[in-house]
């Protein structure tokens, strides 16, 4: 099989990740921060090292401001619900994943916040002039970094300037870009960075994180519960990282992430990015040569991740995806990819979405060649 659904979760994971998880489950296995026996300390040390390594990767100088969650969705919810109050105005884009869009819509309905949307054309190019006009008086600018449908990388520098000029906080959903693109919270002016660990960071599923700038002490805790600290008190401690981390964490996944971070450090951004982009380019050029499909182009001013979307002109999306799966063993994702806003903006909502190819560092040249041959056969 050829796995081209890495934007949903990368597969396979590096062998080091599996080994670290098995090793943790076999030799450590204890709850971190709930006891002070040898194995609990060992478990807590894994978490401590992982927090430091992850913070280093994202340019977070104070590693106690990086927090583990179940996934990126929980990270985003934690930030939005912890920050926004009645009357607040949020500026976002018309290209957002439902991980951001749905909590924003719920807060609009239940908490009385106001949403403003930066329009985009069909190539994911944002209207910066309108964005500036809409930015006055906003409390928060929230946007995705790497679009999960088209691969378009949003201009973080523009958002950072916009946020600074508007006196707003900046939240970035880096689920599709963390690990693939160099992100530095301080350099990039990010106040809240949210991401999953199981995509470009090659950690197991069930783990995400967020990291906060020093401006974010205003953020209230979203979930409260046991932290192993201030146990005599019935109110949530303000101490970091405990304020935002209640309950037992997913330690096997955190052990996996620590191994994944070491693995990816040995490879580096340039090599990983070049690998994905080379395959994306090959797929894109091959698809563009076919009369029967339409490729969802990204504006030339925008860089991309390895994600590529397309759709057949005359055939059913799901039927083509099924053929790719059943006859060629090519695994893709078909539909709206939890981002109806993007499909609306790029004009593919009425088609029922797109078929998405998303290679990873483990996708081989031979696999890409096989996909291209399969596409040519299907097109005949």
């Amino acid at each position, binding site marked *: 099989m050829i796995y081209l659904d890495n934007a949903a979760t990368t597969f396979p994971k590096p062998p080091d990740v599996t080994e670290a998880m098995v090793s943790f489950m076999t030799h450590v296995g204890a709850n*971190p*921060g*709930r*006891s*002070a*026996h040898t194995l609990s*300390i060992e478990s*807590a*040390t894994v*978490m*401590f090292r992982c*927090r430091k390594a992850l913070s280093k990767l994202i340019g977070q100088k104070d590693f*106690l401001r990086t927090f583990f969650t179940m996934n990126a969705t929980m990270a985003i919810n934690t930030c939005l619900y912890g920050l926004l109050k009645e009357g607040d105005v949020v500026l976002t884009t018309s290209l957002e994943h439902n991980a951001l869009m749905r909590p924003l819509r719920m807060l609009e309905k239940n908490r009385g916040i106001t949403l403003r949307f930066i329009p985009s054309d069909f190539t994911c190019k944002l209207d910066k002039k309108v964005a500036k006009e809409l930015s006055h008086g906003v409390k928060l600018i929230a946007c995705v970094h790497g679009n999960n449908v088209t691969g378009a990388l949003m201009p973080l520098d523009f958002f950072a300037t916009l946020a600074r000029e508007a006196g707003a906080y900046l939240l970035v959903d880096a689920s599709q870009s963390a690990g693939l693109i160099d992100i530095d919270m301080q350099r990039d002016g990010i106040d809240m960075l949210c991401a999953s660990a199981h995509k470009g960071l090659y950690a197991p599923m069930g783990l995400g994180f967020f990291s906060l700038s020093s401006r974010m002490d205003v953020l209230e805790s979203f979930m409260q519960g046991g*932290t*192993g*600290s*201030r*146990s*005599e008190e019935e109110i949530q*401690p303000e*101490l*970091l*990282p*405990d304020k935002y981390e209640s309950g037992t964490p997913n330690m096997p996944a955190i052990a996996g992430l620590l191994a994944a971070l070491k693995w990816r450090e040995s490879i580096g951004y340039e090599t990983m990015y070049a690998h994905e982009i080379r395959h994306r380019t090959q797929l894109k050029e091959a698809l563009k040569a076919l009369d029967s499909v339409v490729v969802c182009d990204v504006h030339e001013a925008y860089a991309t991740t390895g994600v590529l979307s397309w759709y057949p002109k005359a055939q059913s999306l799901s039927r083509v995806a099924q053929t790719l799966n059943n006859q060629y063993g090519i695994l893709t994702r078909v539909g709206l990819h939890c981002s109806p806003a993007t499909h609306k903006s790029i004009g593919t909502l009425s088609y029922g979405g797109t078929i998405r190819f998303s290679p990873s560092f483990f996708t081989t040249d031979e696999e890409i060649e096989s996909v291209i041959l399969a596409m040519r056969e299907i097109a005949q």
Partner: protein
Amino acid sequence: MRGYFLLFTTSSALYAHELLGEIEAYKVSLVPTPREFSSDCGMAVYIEGEAIEMAMHCLDEHRIEYEFKSVS
């Protein structure tokens, strides 16, 4: 001088242990928080050495909250 640095989170206990462990003048170890000092269920850093003020300064510099309990 001997004593315990009581830390209030597991992360800060590990961080304090790491920082103080780098100072040659001290012998440090992670231990369960002594019940006589705190009801917290976490860890404390036991320290032995001269001029504990230097250790306190180190923790202050890294904005780690603590209480120090001296033992004879």
